[in-house]
């Protein structure tokens, strides 16, 4: 099998498995939904069918019994109860495993699951076990039996044409088997006035000499078995067979007489005519037509490997860079003609870039769907009743972002269910609905996507967090913190409020890792909570990772990009305005003291700082409207302006260079580093802490 076909099969089956899971889970809440049942059946059927075609026989066999069970469900013979759904979900996972194992290896689990399905089927023997049907219509390896002569009497029913059967093709097929002398009988054709042109009034007597065996002969007529009278007789040979060319006319004469004794007559002829001279071989004219077709098949969508898309986006990125350079040069040359071309190139490049990026956008639906299973499994495991609601599944994000989003979301949902949602009895005692709810929602906000995970659980326990944070030495007993600051502590490394480490939350990944992952996607995470009512975690993510909206700034001869999403405002700062309190750099912004980081000093860039410098004020939690968001300024020589740029990774070699999320190439070919604001702030805080301790 060709690789790309197999690749397509694997991709499709994975997709189908996702759909299977989804429909099973939906089926669980409404086991009588016929649409869902037939959808489930259809998915299983497709998996089985294509697995067999692509040499995944193990999957095909395995799925067979499950399909039969769902056939029973479809026919209303049994109900899709919890047992069957759980079993089928397990089977689904097993199919996934088999798929990854290249279809081989029959583990114990496979046979155990198959056994369970067989048990269900056993009660319904009459429908469960498939009827025996001829499994192969085209005999693959035809055994060479001895040459024999056959008499075939073939009388199609009058309506055979209506099924699209062309009887002449069947006769032609017989020709391929050996030496064939067909004789068409026309005696059944009615007078013209009663003749219906769409009916078939013809029948054939055929003499065939072949070594393929009687089954091959019968196989020719397999599609029309029920629509014809068919008789295949072997003409017993006496002595060595004679050359048929010598007696073809006689054979046809006998055939055309259509007497009941054709077999005997033929036998006699063949024995007698051994020594007669040759005659011409009669043959039907070949039924050949050449036709032309203009319409070529156009599929609605095509599947493309994501690495191909990545490559395309990279190329477009380079094009954007070159285009920026062209714009710059054409502006310098001030040649109207060149400027015209340059503007046209700019417009096209922009369109091309938007389109290329758009191709990579995929709806978050499949990610959300995966969590339905997670929530179901967790709620069974923990004995909590939980409903998962999803909103905005059609929200689209860059595939690369979605791929990286899975783990953090899993962790956050686990947390919500494990720590957030109370046990049923507690909930009832609090006057809440026994069934807890977790809502996953996604939506757009400007050039960002907002994803929220909301639970209606107990909410965060401020005291517990405070106690733990003091214990861990993250804060001191005296620290006074706002609710928000307090909640944010759960993102501190090594922080966990669970009294006991459960198998669900205690998987060694902390909330700090979640926060880090989100930040690596240039997003941010925020938490709000109300005691007794629940917790909401909000993720804000960029639509795409490939392009960044940034502010281009300059220090000495070095260029840097500050992501625009973090920037709040830019202000001018005179030397005299700098407030130096306890060694901390502070600047007054409309009455508010904002700490700042002198980048020239931090980055060891040589040269004197200017008399008037620019401060780019950023807010580190991305929530610009919030009153208590912490602002930090970054001091640079000059702010050049907004710049939309393609991000280039600094590569493996600079993997330790945190503080920079990549580089970008400016119009003139110079490189500008992209600042990783959260990391730079964190590093500053650590430095200050050390300074503080040393004192």
């Amino acid at each position: 099998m060709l690789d790309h076909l197999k690749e397509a099969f694997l991709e499709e089956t994975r997709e189908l498995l996702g759909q299977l899971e989804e429909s099973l889970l939906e089926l669980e809440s409404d086991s009588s939904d016929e649409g869902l049942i037939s959808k489930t059946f259809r998915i299983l059927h497709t998996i089985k069918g294509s697995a067999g075609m692509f040499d995944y026989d193990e999957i095909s066999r395995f799925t067979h019994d499950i399909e039969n069970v769902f056939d029973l469900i479809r026919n209303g013979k049994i109900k899709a109860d919890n047992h069957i759904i759980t079993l089928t979900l397990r089977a689904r996972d097993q199919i996934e495993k088999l798929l990854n194992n290249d279809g081989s290896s029959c583990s114990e689990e496979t046979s155990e699951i198959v056994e369970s399905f067989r048990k269900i089927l056993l009660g319904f023997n009459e429908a469960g076990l498939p009827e025996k049907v001829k499994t192969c219509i085209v005999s693959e390896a035809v055994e060479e039996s001895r040459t024999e002569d056959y008499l075939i009497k073939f009388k199609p029913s009058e309506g055979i044409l209506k099924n699209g059967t062309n009887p002449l093709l069947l006769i032609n097929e017989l020709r391929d088997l050996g030496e064939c002398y067909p004789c068409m009988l026309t005696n059944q054709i009615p007078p013209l006035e009663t003749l219906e042109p769409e009916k078939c009034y013809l029948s054939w007597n055929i003499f065939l000499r072949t070594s393929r065996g009687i089954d091959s002969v019968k196989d020719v007529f397999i599609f029309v078995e029920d629509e014809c009278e068919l008789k295949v007789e072997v003409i017993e040979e006496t002595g060595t067979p004679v050359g048929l060319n010598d007696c073809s006319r006689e054979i046809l004469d006998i055939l055309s007489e259509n007497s009941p004794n054709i077999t005997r007559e033929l036998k006699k002829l063949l024995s007698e005519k051994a020594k007669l001279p040759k005659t011409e071989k009669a043959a039907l004219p070949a039924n050949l037509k050449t036709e032309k077709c203009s319409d070529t098949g156009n599929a609605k969508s095509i599947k493309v490997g994501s690495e191909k898309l990545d490559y395309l986006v990279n190329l477009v990125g380079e094009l954007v860079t070159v285009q920026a350079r062209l714009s710059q040069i054409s502006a310098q040359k001030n040649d109207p003609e060149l400027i015209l071309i340059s503007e046209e190139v700019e417009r096209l490049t922009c369109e091309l870039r938007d389109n290329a990026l758009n191709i990579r956008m995929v709806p978050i639906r499949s990610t959300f769907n995966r969590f339905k299973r997670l929530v179901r499994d967790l709620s069974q495991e923990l004995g909590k009743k939980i409903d998962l609601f999803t909103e905005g599944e059609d929200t689209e994000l860059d595939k690369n972002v979605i791929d990286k989003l899975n783990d953090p979301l899993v962790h956050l949902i686990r947390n919500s269910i494990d720590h957030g949602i109370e046990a049923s009895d507690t909930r009832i005692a609090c006057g809440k609905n026994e069934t807890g709810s977790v809502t996953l929602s996604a939506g757009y906000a400007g050039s960002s996507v907002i994803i929220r995970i909301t639970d209606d659980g107990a909410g965060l326990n401020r005291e517990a967090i405070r106690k733990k944070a003091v214990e861990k030495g993250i804060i001191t007993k005296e620290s006074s913190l706002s609710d928000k600051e307090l909640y944010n502590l759960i993102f501190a490394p090594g922080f966990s409020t669970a009294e006991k480490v459960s198998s669900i939350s205690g998987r060694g990944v902390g909330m700090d890792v979640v926060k880090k992952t989100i930040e690596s996607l240039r997003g941010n995470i925020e938490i709000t909570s109300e005691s007794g009512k629940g917790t909401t975690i909000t993720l804000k993510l960029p639509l795409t990772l490939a392009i960044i909206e940034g502010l281009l700034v300059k220090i000495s001869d070095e260029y840097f990009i500050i992501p625009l999403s973090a920037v709040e405002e830019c202000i001018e700062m005179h030397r005299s305005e700098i407030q130096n309190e306890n060694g901390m750099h502070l600047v007054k912004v409309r009455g508010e003291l904002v700490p700042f980081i002198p980048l020239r000093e931090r980055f060891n860039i040589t040269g004197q700082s200017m008399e008037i410098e620019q401060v780019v004020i950023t807010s580190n939690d991305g929530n610009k409207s919030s009153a208590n968001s912490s602002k930090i300024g970054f001091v640079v020589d000059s702010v050049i302006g907004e710049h939309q740029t393609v991000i280039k990774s600094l590569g493996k070699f600079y993997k330790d260079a945190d503080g920079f999320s990549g580089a970008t190439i400016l119009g003139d070919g110079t490189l500008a580093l992209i600042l990783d604001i959260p990391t730079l702030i964190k590093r500053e805080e650590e430095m200050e802490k050390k300074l503080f301790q040393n004192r």
Partner: protein
Amino acid sequence: MKTILTVDDSSSIRQMVSFTLSEAGYNVIEASDGKDGLEKIKKASNVNLVITDLNMPNMDGIALIRKIRESPAHKFVPILMLTTESQNEKKMEGKQAGATGWIIKPFKPEQLVAVVKKVLP
């Protein structure tokens, strides 16, 4: 060149059928379900053979076969259905609806070509 319409909701099977038949020198049109198939056959100037799966969303294979037979232009076009061995009943239903023949899944590319040759002049 003969044109074959292949109707299947599984894109991998569709691709396989399409690839095999194109290699064998046929012109292939793909459709993803019965509804799509019906639209495509109506639009195409000349379809010489239809190969359809039976279990499909929107419009299943049986319904598609009936619809095709209803149309005067395609009264006699050969139709092959893709079935599995467990679907004998379906096979009968398909024949009654007007299918010419069937191909049992799973099949090998050469089997597909052989069956196509059987019904396509």
